[in-house]
Structure formats: structure tokens, C-alpha cells
């Protein structure tokens, strides 16, 4: 993040956004907050640190006080009366601390606000103001730039993608003893494009193998892509309107080039949310293919009898973390439960769960914002306690972002669990078709 002095030009840019880019929905929310404070204990950040500045109300008020100054009559005439604040360097620093440092944009407060407004939408707008001021955390900004330059946040080259997939394919053939199984890449005319989180290629390649096994078992016509495969979108986390559109557009164009009927988003909460729900609005057009989460697709295969599962292959008790962007903002709520009920021996729900779940603390791009690491781990305390209370040995989560955070929480809070994707668990339970050669 830009430390210290905010240049006058940056302040001016931020003010321009504040004056011109509040849309009618955000304005309604900003006008509606009554500062009742009843949202405080709906937020995992506040529950963990008990600091008044972490309540959704305080974060909303940071933005609302600026809004009142530039968009209301009394804010201009009697700013002291209505608590209207002029945009200054200090105000921007405070806004950055609130919007990036104390909020994961999880939206839990939105379901619980007494008035019915959406604090997360307001805080996302604050991030857009901060983009204009050049105050995006360095790690998030670096990911945006890498995605813009190379097509993925980890700058993985096309050659490296091809090599990794070829190695995984070879390994998968040996593991399941089926020379027919394949991890197709850049196959035009496939029905499904399965798009990845670059972290899978670098750190979690077995989740790609798991997907390959599942597509193979279901007899799906599918492909990976060696370019523009990245489902993550740090432009969205930053509130960078231009970057989020450009990043989503690359993958969408690639899917169009390949002529697929469906874009299946690997297990990634915000990747699903942005591509399924937001991207058509950013591009101003409907997409010529369906967008679904891999979780939905696996559930459909299972429901249609295209997958056969043996839950005894996963004997340890499993609990489920609901990624906010997939569940509360995405509507994929029951599919993961349906899968787990068929794929594991014992499935234990966390409390609360589904759309009422607590954020793991790693949302909103915070995993990439090293300056907020301590707060991220601290705010994950609520999730750690939820996990511990279930007594589960395995935590499943259909989101690589959440998985990274859950692994950090596992270490920090010594939970003694294994953290896994849904695909890995389903793949372990698969009863595979007998290979033709045997």
C-alpha cells in the first residue's frame, strides 16, 4: 500500500470517484444506515478482536461520513451536525485501514443488518476510492499486474502449464492404471472448459488430477486451457473496475475461442462469483455459454448416476467450510452437502453454516495483503473455534483461497485437521469404471 504521504493528485482522483461513481444502490445503502450498531457481532473481525473500529457500523460510517460531505445538503451546510468528513490524506488512510485491513467483504453483515443495507457493497466502494488514490495493498496490486501482463496472477507460462499437465496426466494414468484417462489441453469443441486457480498448478496439482478423474468417470467432454486459464480476479478484490473487467474478459474470450458450451470454474469462491454473476454486467453482455462451479457439476453427475461413490473410502469425520463468495454471494449452498453425504462416512456441520457461515478470515484478497496478515490470522479465530467444536478430522472447502487460510489457521490454532477440496474428497470416494485394457 502507498505508505505515508498521499499525493495531491491522488487525493483529487479519489475525490472524483467519491463525487462521481457512487451508484444509486450504494447511495441508498449509505443513506440508510442508522448507526444502530446491531451488526457488530455478525462480523468475524469484530468477534475476534472486539475493537469498535472492526464493527460493520464503524466501517460503513467511515464511508458514509465522506458521502454525506459531498452528497447531502446538511453535509455541506452543517458538516458537524451530521458528522460529515472532508476527504483528506488522514481520511484516506483511515478508509484504507478499515476497507482493506478490517473487512473481507464476506457480506455476513448484509444478511443481518437491521435496516437491510449491504455494508460489504459500501466497503467495496471504499476500495474503489482507494484504487483511485493508488492505495491498494502491494500484494493485491502485484497480482492484478501479473494477471494483466501474463494472463494469470502467478505468471505461469504456457509451456509450464503444458508440462505440468503432461506430468499430471502421466501420473494419473499410473495411479489409476488406466491409459485412457487424459487431461486434455486446448481441445477445441469440447463441451466443458475447466478453468483453474493458478495456485493449483503451482502448489495443489492433485486437485487438477482429482478433477480429471471425476470428468473421466462421468464421461465428460472437457478441456483445460494453457493460456488465460485464471479464474481468480484480484481486480475484483481491489475494487478496480477496469482491472476486474479486463481480467474476466481474458478467460471469457478464451472460452469463446475454444467454442465450449460451459465454463466450469474450479473450486474458488470469488472466481465463481465474478465469472458466474458479475462478469456479464462488467462486459455489458450475456455470455454465450453457461458458467457453473465444479461443485454444481459434480453434484449433477452424482444425481444423474454418472458418478458412483463409496463413502467408506473417506472414513474420518469431515466438516465443511462454506466459502462466502460461493455460498452467500453465489447461491451454491446445498450441492456441497449433497456430495459430502455421499462421499464420506461422517459429515458434521459447523454452526452456523450455509449462508450464515462465518468467513474464514482470508477473503477479500487479504491473503495477498501481507501488511494485514496478523489481523487475518486473528480474525480467523472464529472459524478455528467453529472447526474445533465439530471434532472433525478433515475440513472440506470448495475454495482454494479459503483452503490457504484454513491451512494457516490449522497451524496457528493447532487444530490438527487436514484441509481438502471437495474434488479431492469425491475423487477418493470414486468407484472408477474398469479400464478397457483390463
Amino acid at each position, binding site marked *: 500500500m502507498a505508505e505515508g504521504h498521499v499525493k495531491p493528485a491522488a487525493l483529487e482522483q479519489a475525490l472524483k470517484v467519491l463525487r462521481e461513481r457512487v*451508484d444509486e444502490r450504494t447511495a441508498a445503502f449509505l443513506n440508510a444506515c442508522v448507526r*444502530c450498531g*446491531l451488526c457488530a457481532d455478525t462480523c468475524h473481525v469484530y468477534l475476534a478482536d472486539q475493537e*469498535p473500529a472492526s464493527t460493520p457500523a464503524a466501517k460503513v460510517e467511515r464511508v458514509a461520513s465522506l458521502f454525506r460531505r459531498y452528497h447531502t445538503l446538511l453535509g455541506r451546510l452543517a458538516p458537524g451536525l451530521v458528522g460529515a468528513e472532508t476527504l483528506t490524506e488522514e481520511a484516506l488512510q483511515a478508509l484504507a485501514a478499515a476497507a482493506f485491513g478490517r473487512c473481507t467483504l464476506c457480506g455476513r453483515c448484509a444478511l443481518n443488518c437491521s435496516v*437491510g443495507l449491504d455494508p460489504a457493497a459500501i466497503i467495496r466502494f471504499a476500495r474503489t476510492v482507494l484504487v483511485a488514490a493508488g492505495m491498494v495493498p502491494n500484494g493485491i496490486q502485484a497480482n492484478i499486474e501479473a494477471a494483466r501482463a501474463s494472463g494469470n496472477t502467478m505468471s505461469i507460462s504456457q509451456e509450464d502449464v503444458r508440462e505440468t499437465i503432461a506430468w499430471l496426466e502421466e501420473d494419473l494414468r499410473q495411479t489409476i492404471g488406466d491409459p485412457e484417462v487424459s487431461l486434455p489441453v486446448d481441445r477445441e469443441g469440447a463441451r466443458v472448459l475447466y478453468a483453474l486457480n493458478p495456485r493449483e498448478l503451482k502448489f495443489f496439482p492433485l486437485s487438477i488430477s482429482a478433477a480429471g478423474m471425476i470428468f473421466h468417470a462421468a464421461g465428460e467432454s472437457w478441456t483445460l486451457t494453457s493460456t488465460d486459464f485464471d479464474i481468480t480476479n484480484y481486480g475484483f478484490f481491489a475494487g478496480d473496475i477496469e482491472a476486474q473487467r479486463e481480467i474476466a474478459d481474458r478467460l471469457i474470450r478464451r472460452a469463446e475461442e475454444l467454442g465450449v458450451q460451459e465454463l466450469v470454474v474450479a473450486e474458488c469462491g470469488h472466481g465463481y462469483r465474478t465469472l458466474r454473476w458479475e*462478469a*456479464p454486467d462488467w462486459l455489458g453482455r450475456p455470455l454465450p455459454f453457461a458458467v457453473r462451479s465444479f461443485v454444481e457439476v459434480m453434484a449433477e453427475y452424482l444425481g444423474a448416476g454418472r458418478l458412483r461413490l463409496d463413502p467408506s473410502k473417506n472414513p474420518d469425520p469431515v466438516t465443511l467450510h462454506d466459502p462466502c463468495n460461493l455460498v452467500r454471494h453465489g447461491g451454491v*449452498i446445498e450441492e456441497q452437502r449433497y456430495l459430502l453425504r455421499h462421499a464420506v462416512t461422517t459429515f458434521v456441520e459447523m454452526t452456523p453454516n450455509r*449462508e450464515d457461515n462465518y468467513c474464514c478470515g482470508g477473503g477479500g484478497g487479504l491473503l495477498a495483503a501481507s501488511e494485514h496478515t496478523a489481523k487475518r490470522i486473528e480474525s480467523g479465530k472464529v472459524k478455528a473455534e467453529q472447526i474445533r467444536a465439530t471434532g472433525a478430522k478433515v475440513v472440506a472447502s470448495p475454495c482454494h483461497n479459503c483452503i490457504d487460510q484454513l491451512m494457516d489457521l490449522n497451524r496457528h490454532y493447532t487444530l490438527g485437521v487436514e484441509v481438502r477440496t471437495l474434488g479431492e474428497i469425491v475423487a477418493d470416494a470414486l468407484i472408477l469404471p474398469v479400464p478397457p485394457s483390463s
Partner: protein
Amino acid sequence: MTLGSLVLVAALLVALAGFLAQRFSRRFPRVPAPIAPARGSAAAGVLYAFTKAFFPTAKESASLHLASYLAGIGYHLGIFTALAGLLASLLPVRVPTAANAAGAVLTAIGLVCGLGLLAKRTLDARLRGISVPDDFVANLLVDAALATGIAAYLDHALVPLFQVTGAVLLLYAPLGKLRHMLFLVTSRRWSGAYFGRRGVRPTPQGPGNPRG
């Protein structure tokens, strides 16, 4: 028409104009209709937001703070009763005694709740930290209108006083935090449509859904 009624009618018209101007303001860019195919129903989400979402069990802001929730309900009950009394004061008929008594009781409940919420805002450090002078001014203006409303319900001679405090309140309403009476409606509509369309609330969709 009495002077009090004239003042009240003028204030009503100004407040109405103020709210309409904000409701139909073109100051803020419009949000286009979402393009992605819906998973649930926006209409069902909006309906939920204006019905079940008001139940104390629907939100933690209510279920974890039942006393504040009930005080809020009582406060607004009193406010709506007082507003009804204000409008009735413009009619050329006298309200029956029983209705006056009921009005006084409901408005008194509202006043007690309003003062309770004011005390909470003053005494609770966390709440005080996010409060601005407008929070206290708005509460006191409403409380003044409620107090004079009770008096007017009990003694018809005090109706002009009620009309004047009511007029002051109405003139302030479109300017400060009382604007939430308009923006609560628009906010619930936006949020209800958002969660409804995405199939989150009221009823999640999907295989094996125990609530579907």
C-alpha cells in the same frame, strides 16, 4: 384552517418534496438490470425482505439484541401512531375518545422506547463512538413530537402544539438520519433482489436441499 394546520400542511408538502427529490434524483448513476441468468427469484427475495426478514428470528441484529429490537419496534409503532394523529388533526372531524386513548398509549410506548434508545446511545461506549450529533437531534425531535402527541391525544386544546413539533420534525426528516424512512425501503429492495436472484434467500435451490 387553523394556523397550526397550515404550518403542518406546509411542512408535509416540503418533506414530501424533499423525499421525492431524493427518491427520483439523477445524481447517482443508475444500476443496470443484472445480466447473468438468475438462480433464484428476485421478487421472492424482495418479498422475503419485507416480510419474514422483519421477524426477530431472521437476523442476528434482532435475535442477539432482542431488547433493542423490541424497543425499535415500539418506537416505530409510536411514531406511526403519532403520524396518524398528525394527519387526523387536519381532518374536520374529532377522533373518538377511545381512539384517542389508544393513540396516547401507543405513542407513550413509542416515547418510552425512544428515550430508552437515546439512553443506550448515550451510555454505550461502542454506540457513542459511531454516533454523530444528528443521532441525538433526530431522536429528540421525534421524542418531542411523541410527547406533544400524547398531550394532544389527551387534551384536544394541545393539538396546535403537536402540529408545530410535528412540522419541525417533518422539515428535518429529509435532511438527517430520518431519511432512512425512505432508504430503508430502497435498501431492502436492493438487498432482497440481490439475495433472491442468487438463490440465497429466501430458499436455497439445489439437490438434496432440506429446506427446498
